[in-house]
């Protein structure tokens, strides 16, 4: 590491330290803010540790909330990927499907996933199903879009080579078009996971009895910003973890892409 790079690293560390220090001084030492609007970092860390085992004040520990959110986000996301990706591929490959399915898809595309929450609650109740369906809708759209674009990037020359060697239509799809589309398919899968995670937080804020979104929404009602901040940090960490994991998978699965 060159000395210049090293000094930048120190600058980065310094910036975080100063940030936390200012927060600490303003809130915990000088008491510039009320604890009911912005608690200091010490309070937040204490709450975080307490919340790992305590169920007060919202009826579940942090891990139970995380588990509940993860379960719904994952099931909705998996459904979105399993249904959305093949549909996108089929739409891009078969003209007939494109002609008839595309307009319907374009109809639901501009509606953000979380706008469906109230409708799904009315249709399926406030249980798991309504949330899974909402998460599914918000994961489904990026999967279709990206796999569609991915297939469309297949080079004509590659298809001609396939035809020359007598590949059938289905063989050309599986051997040429699908591998070409994989990087974009994976992008879609990653975007979908982010969207699912956002959507589940929103759904839990509106109607739920458990989950991270429910936790921060309840904490707002009783003026406990320390719990809100804990929840937000947890949501952020899990979101970052997701995208890191999927990038790892992407690197393993997809070969021959320059990064």
């Amino acid at each position, binding site marked *: 590491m060159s000395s210049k790079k090293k000094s*930048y690293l120190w*600058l*980065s560390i310094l*910036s*975080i330290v100063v*940030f936390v220090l200012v927060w600490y001084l303003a809130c915990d030492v000088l008491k510039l803010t009320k604890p*009911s*609007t912005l608690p200091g970092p010490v309070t937040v860390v204490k709450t975080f540790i307490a919340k790992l085992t305590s169920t007060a004040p919202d009826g579940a520990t942090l891990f139970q909330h995380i588990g509940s959110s993860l379960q719904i986000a994952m099931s909705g996301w998996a459904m979105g990927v399993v249904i959305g990706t093949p549909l996108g591929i089929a739409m891009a*490959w078969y*003209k007939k499907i494109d*002609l*008839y*399915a*595309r*307009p*319907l898809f374009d*109809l*639901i*595309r*501009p*509606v*953000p996933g*979380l*706008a*469906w*929450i*109230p*409708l799904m*609650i*009315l*249709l399926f109740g406030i249980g798991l199903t309504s949330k899974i369906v909402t998460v599914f809708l918000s994961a489904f759209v990026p999967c279709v879009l990206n796999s569609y674009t991915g*297939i*469309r*990037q*297949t*080079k*004509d020359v590659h*298809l001609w080579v396939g035809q020359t060697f007598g590949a059938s239509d289905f063989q050309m799809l599986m051997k040429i*078009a699908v591998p070409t589309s994989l990087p974009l398919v994976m992008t879609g899968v990653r975007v979908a996971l*982010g969207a699912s995670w*956002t959507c589940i*937080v*929103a759904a839990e*804020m*509106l109607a739920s009895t458990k989950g991270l*979104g429910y936790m*921060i*929404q309840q*904490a*707002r009602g009783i003026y406990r*910003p320390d719990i*809100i*901040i804990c929840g*937000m*940090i947890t*949501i*952020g*960490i899990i*979101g*970052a973890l997701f995208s890191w994991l999927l990038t790892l998978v992407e690197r393993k699965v997809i070969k021959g892409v320059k990064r």
Partner: protein
Amino acid sequence: MTGRNLKGISKYKKIYAAVISIFVFLCIWQLAVMFTDVGIVMVGPIEVIKLFFVSMVKPIGHDTIQMHIVWSLSRVMTGFVIGSALGVVLGILMGWFRPMNALFRPIYEIIRPIPPIAWIPLSIVWFGIGEPSKYFIIFLAAFSAITMNAFAGVRAVDPELIGAARMLGANNRQVFTTIVLPSCVPHIFAGLQIAIGSSWATVVAAEMVRASQGVGWVIIRGQDSNSTVQIMVGIVAVGIVGFALAVLMRWIEAKLCAWNVRGR
């Protein structure tokens, strides 16, 4: 683009297929509502379209549907303009000056993975239930998307261009204004495109959590009063405006950077 796209099919046939598929879909929906158990909780498209037009003259709550849309748009625009202005500046600074990057990147990376929606409760605690809390959330939504793209845009500048300019005697400031700024414009527009979409989704969420007007409020009021048709009207409004915003951004991009319209 592959040879298998819709190039060979006339525009006329495409529109024809679209009309048929949407019409069939609406028919199935209407029939399902009329003749099966779905009708107990769901309303048909005819009713939805009817209420949509009725609500243009007869208000839902205090405002007509256009006024709700205007309310939501005004929130989005305020947050979006501030967020994108700051985001472009910060992103370019971070991309061009390494010390700036070292200074702001860590804090930005801590905030970035938190979805803007998760800020709703905290912003209500900080700014109350009025307009400022919504501006703040939308500001965050726009800001994080645009900063990232502006940053990537500066980093993606062709180093050969910079080298050539320097060789011809351009100073740092000239390199920055004549090469770096113009070449990151397409990236910034990609960021603006993402930001307007996520801002719109975020305003709907914010209004569903706490508001007394706006399209998100129309949807959540529909749920509170068990009125599926009002929810659907809200969803239709959200969809139309979301679509219009995306088209508008693409049009502005095509006008402003005609030299670099990505093939979409």
